[in-house]
């Protein structure tokens, strides 16, 4: 089976950002995303999933390295200063490279 390399960009951020992240990802040229609800803790303290506006989401995008860079740069510029957010990039293999 032919496996092509792509990047998996994972963003953990406060859930209030969900619509913004969807917009950004779309604008930067990615064709899809996957979201799960999460809770956690980091430099901005603990964030529990229990209460409406206080949880995190775990936002994943499979895309080319170039798009991943663009999304990461945009988020760094616009969101890092004021929002709870963590971002990391993993190498993944996909079967339908044209899809991402």
């Amino acid at each position, binding site marked *: 089976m032919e496996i092509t390399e792509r990047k998996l960009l994972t963003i953990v951020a406060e859930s*209030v950002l969900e619509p913004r992240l969807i917009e950004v990802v779309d604008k930067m040229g990615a064709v899809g995303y996957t979201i799960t609800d999460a809770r956690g803790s980091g430099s901005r*303290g603990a964030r529990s*999933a*229990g*209460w*409406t*506006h206080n949880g995190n989401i775990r936002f994943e995008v499979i895309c080319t390295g170039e798009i991943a860079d663009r999304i990461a740069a945009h988020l760094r510029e616009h*969101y890092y200063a*004021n*929002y709870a957010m963590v971002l990391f990039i993993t190498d993944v293999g996909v079967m339908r490279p044209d899809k991402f």
Partner: protein
Amino acid sequence: MDPVIWFFLLGVLAGLMRSDLRMPKAVYELLSMVLLLTIGLKGGVELAQQPVGGLVVQVLAVASIGLVIPLAVFSAIRALSSAPRADAASLAAHYGSVSVATYAVGVSFLATRNVPVDAQLPLFLVVLEVPAIMVGIVLAKGAAARSNWGGVMHEVFLGKSIVLLIGGLLIGWLSGPEGIEPLEPLFFDLFKGVLALFLLEMGLIAANQASGLKRRATLVILTAILTPVPAAMLGIGVGHVIGLNVGGMTLLGVLAGSASYIAAPAAMRIAVPDANPSLSLSASLGITFPFNIFIGVPLYYGAAQWLAGAGA
């Protein structure tokens, strides 16, 4: 004391003692949905029965409370503390807007004492929710800022609480008392029980917020304790001027004295991201909410009675 208040205390204690008691988010949302619809439906039914004259003037008077309070809070904080503009504006928005849970506790308090309430109060609840949020945003950024004004307005006006309150009002108004009767077992008879469960969760959250209070604690505590009473007095006074009965004056006082913990935080987080969200939440949920339900509501009721008596 109204037994629903005990549930709040139970939640606070469980939270402070770090019990594993927790309310699933879905349950919290069900309870708040039912509370909002109940308040709306009840108001709508009453408006259908006793149409209110001069409503437009009243609504304008009430909306002006939502402009005055945030301006006053903002000016005071900026004059008396070193808090950054964004934080002052955010606190202003929270205290100018309203808390549905506090309102529900006020309704429950008056119901226990059989005090009648004017039909238009749920409408005033809707009217007071939004303006202060807009004022807060303008205070933080200036009106001309490049901020995504449309998006924020959409979020505020089409937020869950406005939609359910207005929806309930309209349905109650269109259906009238007989039409609404089959809905009463869920929306009216269970009201206090639903409120009790809701306050249990509020207690858990408040304990969390209060114990998370660290940065700028003086600012938060002073704002949270000093704002409600004068704001409520303004509400009661306006209520008197526009001719509300004692119950109506009390509830308008409760609304003015209460601080938002749903609509305002969500809107501020997006529109004024450099404001520290935990300042406003600790103040409104951790301090002002308990202050109001224990001390504020009876106090505002007393003031309304006194003012009505003095006016008579």
